[in-house]
């Protein structure tokens, strides 16, 4: 029983190793990009649009409204990053329905990469919105003594994001594997349903937390002006 799919190596040449996590991630990316390209080939403005375009519109508009509700002005600027975050994690957790599939988010490398991309994106969006000086000065609010604590909280938020997603998905897969050796009939199906639910909730949580962090960073300008 392995802790994550990083241990299963499919192909190796020198020190370059292709493990199941990398292959699954690329397959998911291919599915998402090719699917989106196929659906948005001929976008139509009529009232009766194709079913796939209608589905994609529902998804995009819902995500944009959620981002706006958290408190970000101009949600279109952040829609690409946050929407991709949510859709990738949701798709990778949803595909656990297929037998023999190991979710790449059940490996600490994938979740650490996603958390690091949020860690880099938050200052980028903050600086793009407020300018470098005001953004850096926001770290010294409310007093200058809080500077190390603000930095530590940034780092621990990133770590918590990675470990939360990894722990939830890995625990679901591991509990399922253990149950299959004990009571292989009905109970694993119930646990799979629970795993699907937590997968979707964790995807939503990851995206909402990233949104909240970006909203806190882009609000530096309003807070500095009063």
């Amino acid at each position, binding site marked *: *029983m*392995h*802790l994550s799919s990083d241990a299963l190596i499919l192909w190796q040449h020198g020190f370059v190793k292709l493990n199941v996590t990398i292959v699954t991630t690329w397959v998911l990316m291919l599915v998402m990009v090719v699917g989106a390209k196929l659906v948005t080939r001929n976008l139509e403005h009529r009232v009766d649009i194709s079913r796939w375009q209608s589905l994609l519109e529902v998804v995009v508009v819902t995500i944009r409204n959620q981002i706006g*509700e958290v408190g970000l002005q101009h949600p279109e600027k952040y829609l690409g990053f946050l929407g991709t975050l949510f859709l990738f994690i949701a798709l990778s957790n949803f595909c656990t329905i297929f037998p023999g599939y190991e979710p790449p988010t059940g490996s600490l490398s994938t979740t650490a990469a996603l958390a690091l991309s949020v860690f880099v994106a938050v200052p980028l969006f903050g600086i793009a919105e407020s300018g470098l000086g005001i953004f850096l000065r926001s770290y010294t609010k409310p007093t200058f003594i809080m500077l190390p604590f603000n930095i530590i909280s940034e780092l621990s938020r990133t770590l*918590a994001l990675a*470990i*939360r997603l*990894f*722990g*939830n998905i*890995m*625990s679901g897969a*591991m509990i399922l594997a253990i149950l299959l050796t004990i009571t292989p009939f009905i109970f694993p199906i119930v646990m799979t349903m629970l795993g699907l639910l937590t997968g979707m*909730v*964790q995807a*939503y*949580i990851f995206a*909402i*937390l990233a949104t909240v962090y970006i909203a806190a960073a882009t609000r530096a300008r309003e807070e500095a002006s009063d």
Partner: protein
Amino acid sequence: MDSITLIAMASIITAGLTIAIGGIAPALGEGRAVSTALSSLAQQPDASTTITRTLFVGLAMIESIAIYCFVVSMILIFANPFWDHVIAQVAK
């Protein structure tokens, strides 16, 4: 008692205690969070979407403490570096 037995015993006991004790406080905290959310939903049903969304975000943050304990427990059982080290020494 040689080091293999000691490491195995400490790992197993610690793994069990970690998840047992570490699951108590998040469960209590989540219970309080849900009960407060239910009473505020009863007081203001119009804000139900906001309350529900905030409840889920809060529950996920509380749950992550239990997840940390679970991850430590799993590492002690399945990816224990001390155990691997001591087994590698015996294999030599």
